[in-house]
């Protein structure tokens, strides 16, 4: 288990427990956190689970893991920033306990 904090565009914060091995995207959907749509369900096919990893966590959460993720990040509705990731591609581990991600204004 790891605690993940999702901060919506308007500043609303949600801290939830996410099982190790789950994605940051699934953690949001299972806990009704608004702001992550994830219409393709984690298939690197939609760009609607975009998040900005908090600067303090950027090194640990890592950079995009595939060319598909980089391609899809070019299709996001909101601005891409240096710590932009698709949250379906961030796997929760114990090392990410306390992770903070910021959610964009819009996913589409």
């Amino acid at each position: 288990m790891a605690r993940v904090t999702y901060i919506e565009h308007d500043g609303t914060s949600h801290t939830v427990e996410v099982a190790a091995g789950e994605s940051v995207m699934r953690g949001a959907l299972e806990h009704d956190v608004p702001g992550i749509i994830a219409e393709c369900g984690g298939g690197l096919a939609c760009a609607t689970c975009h998040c900005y990893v908090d600067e303090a966590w950027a090194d640990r959460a890592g950079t995009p893991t595939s060319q598909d993720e980089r391609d899809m990040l070019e299709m996001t509705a909101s601005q891409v920033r240096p710590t932009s990731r698709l949250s379906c591609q961030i796997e929760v581990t114990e090392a990410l306990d306390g992770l903070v991600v910021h959610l964009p204004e819009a996913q589409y």
Partner: protein
Amino acid sequence: MKYDPTNPVPPQVIRRVGMDQVPDHVPPGLIRQSGLVFGPEFLADPYEFFPALHEKYPPVYYDVGPFGNAWQLIKHEDALFALRHAEYFSTEDATPFPRDPEDYFNFIPIEFDPPDHRKYRNIVDPFVSPKAIQGWEDRIRTLANELIDDVIDKGGCEFDEAFGRPLPVLVFLDLMGLPRNMCDTFVEWAVALLHSNDRAIMGQTMALITEYIQGAIAEKEAQPLSEGLISQIVHAEIDGRPISPKEKFGFVVFLFIAGLDTVFATLNNIWLWLARNPDRRAEIIADPANIDHQVEELLRAFSVTFSGRTVAQDVTVRGVAMKKGDKVTSILPACNYDPDVFPNPREVDFHRPKKIILAFTVGVHSCMGAHLARMEVKIALQEWLRRIPDFEVKPGAQIVYRPGGVIGPEHLPLVW
């Protein structure tokens, strides 16, 4: 009053069929009779019909036909908007299977919008996620090879019967937690329900399916929770209460309808194209590292179905005013040939820049079986082309498409 999903009631709907039922707000210049999915042009070659729509038709038009009048969307951007905005485009009354108004049920999850929708999807999503589906890879590969074993020495086969149908149906039975010996029966039901075009046969078949599903639900209820989707559904809780009988049935029956025919039709379409394009087969075989993009591009070029909605409040799309109660259909295979998004759309190009394809729709109701479908197509391509790299359509065979909501050649006889 909030809708009670445990006690479903039929929606009030407006049905319009034929030229005398075109509402006044439809500009006469936008009325078309496209013949989708039954006209001679469509049936001659659906995958030429779809790209040609962009050359011959306005981007939004009002289609009048014997199966019902509806706005049709063929632009990628417009379909994305419609599928992502339930406040304008509702899934109410959008699934074209008749139900008894006296014993009504909702198709779940498609007929519920967020946030209720998510509660149902959370029951099944962990079993159909990309990671969960990876766990099915070996089993699907074994199955594909068993089916190929049965025909490889025969020099030919009816592809649809020998491979296209049984592969997805057997995987579906495993996923649902149903016995594999039901395969032939399920195939018969699927054919009768989806391809008979005879309402009496469809009704009888629906009754048989209903009886079977009710039995399967009762059986899973009596047993402890297990991995199959039916067991997960019947033992689920919604908002802290046990899922109700109507919800269980509507969920299982929807998976049944959605799961049986779409991959079948997709495989038939792809194998017809492979049979006719030996150089493209060779290209796939020569570039195994690109398999995921090959699958995605083939899904773009050979999407098989449509997505219907009902206008929930007046809305304007590309300057066209739509009124509450109008029907709207996103013509997904046409959207995948939109030249603004996929330049030179008729060309199957395994090196296209990655874009959102509409094979599985988009929005919250995006296909829950998409990752399974991708895996099935991928393994089918890999194993078939490894073992039967050269094949063609049986000389003299007629390739025939039948009208229906899922597009693919009815029979595909191959020789090698």
